[in-house]
């Protein structure tokens, strides 16, 4: 049960709402808060019982809402969730939301590590909530939003910057070299497909970008995911030499591949096991090779 114990200092109760809230809404908020307080007490008691029970998972979840009083100051909430074999962090979060606190907010959809919605910072590492077994983690399980991205609310971060970087590398196939027959495919060797295969697995979850402290310092750095996307196309032989040259020009720019300091943190957190650092290094070598031609 949620004990709602804030780890940071208690908020000043007199602290004002956001200026935009209407009186009606304020009243509503007030009522809800009172009810929440009563519920908290009930839940606190239940939580103590639950905490004594070994078969529960202790979640410490980051909470923040710019709009709701009491959540404007970031804090951690505790939830005690009944454990079952095979339970993932996402399962635990969903249980906590559906049973204890419906305002607990996080993105999730497919539950099978393909939609990339639920990259979270779990016990100090970027992981997909759905792909992480609770039993593999130390208790308590600390769940936070992805670092280095602006927090919208609770575990939800603003992904716009990540999407911008992804789209900055012209992430779409471009070729002038299509077969004459409209019903004929372009041929691609198995070796070439094998070469780009891992890079095509990216699910845009943003874990790599969040783990990269170069991306944290340099806002314009394209970042591992976007560079991997560039690799996916630059190495695909179907696009042809001219396009490859163009793609190398994109990744060669100041905030491109040269920023990578081969810390391997992106490679380590990638939930799809994409060798991101390897791909970035390969792009660096390609870029040097193509430049040496002109020297």
């Amino acid at each position, binding site marked *: 049960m949620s004990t709602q114990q804030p780890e940071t200092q208690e908020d000043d109760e007199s602290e004002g709402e956001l200026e935009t809230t209407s009186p009606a809404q304020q009243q509503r908020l007030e009522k809800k808060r009172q009810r929440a307080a009563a519920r908290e007490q009930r839940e606190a008691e239940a939580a103590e019982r639950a905490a004594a029970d070994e078969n529960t998972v202790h979640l410490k979840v980051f909470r923040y809402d710019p709009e709701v009083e009491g959540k404007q100051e970031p804090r951690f909430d505790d939830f005690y969730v009944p454990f079952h074999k095979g339970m993932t962090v996402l399962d635990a979060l969903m249980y906590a939301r559906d049973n204890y606190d419906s305002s607990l907010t996080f993105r999730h959809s497919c539950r099978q590590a393909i939609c990339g919605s639920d990259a979270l910072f779990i016990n100090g590492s970027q992981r997909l909530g759905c792909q992480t077994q609770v039993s593999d983690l130390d208790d308590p399980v600390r769940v936070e939003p992805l670092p280095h991205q602006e927090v919208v609310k609770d575990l939800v971060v603003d992904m716009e910057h990540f999407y911008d970087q992804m789209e900055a590398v012209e992430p779409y196939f471009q070729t002038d070299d299509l077969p004459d027959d409209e019903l004929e495919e372009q041929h691609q060797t198995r070796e070439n497909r094998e070469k780009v295969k891992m890079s095509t697995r990216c699910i845009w979850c943003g874990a790599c970008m969040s783990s990269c402290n170069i991306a944290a310092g340099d806002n314009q750095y394209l970042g591992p995911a976007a560079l991997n996307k560039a690799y996916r196309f630059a190495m695909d032989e179907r696009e042809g030499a001219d396009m490859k040259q163009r793609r190398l020009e994109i990744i*060669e720019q*100041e905030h*491109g591949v040269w920023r990578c300091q081969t810390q391997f943190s992106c490679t380590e957190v990638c939930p799809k096991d994409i060798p991101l650092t390897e791909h970035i290094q390969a792009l660096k070598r390609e870029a040097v090779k193509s430049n040496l031609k002109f020297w």
Partner: protein
Amino acid sequence: MAERYSSFEKGGRRWLLQRVTAAFLIVVLAFHFFLLHFVNHANEVTFQMSAGRMQQWIYYSLMVLFLITATFHGVNGVYNALVNMGLTGARKRAMKAALSVASLLLIVQGLRTANAWAGIDLLPII
């Protein structure tokens, strides 16, 4: 995003130079340490011996190259570190200028010292 495509400096050349100087430095630095700490012990260093080595043009050239590559490698490393920490705009340009001046001073001073040993009178400024 527009400036992404109009970056004044691609960084690729500096990246490559950093690697090339690294490879050179690995060899020369090992040689330098070996010569001045293992072959000749540090407490036995004298002006005469240093001068004697410096008067050989191969050694002199190697040391001058050593000085220049080490300065580039080091200062470029510092610059990269600062940029990676998020240095941008005017402060970045200022830092770049300051580091360039510091490098130049270091190299000039190093050359004068080397010349002092070698007995060359190329840079007679005090």
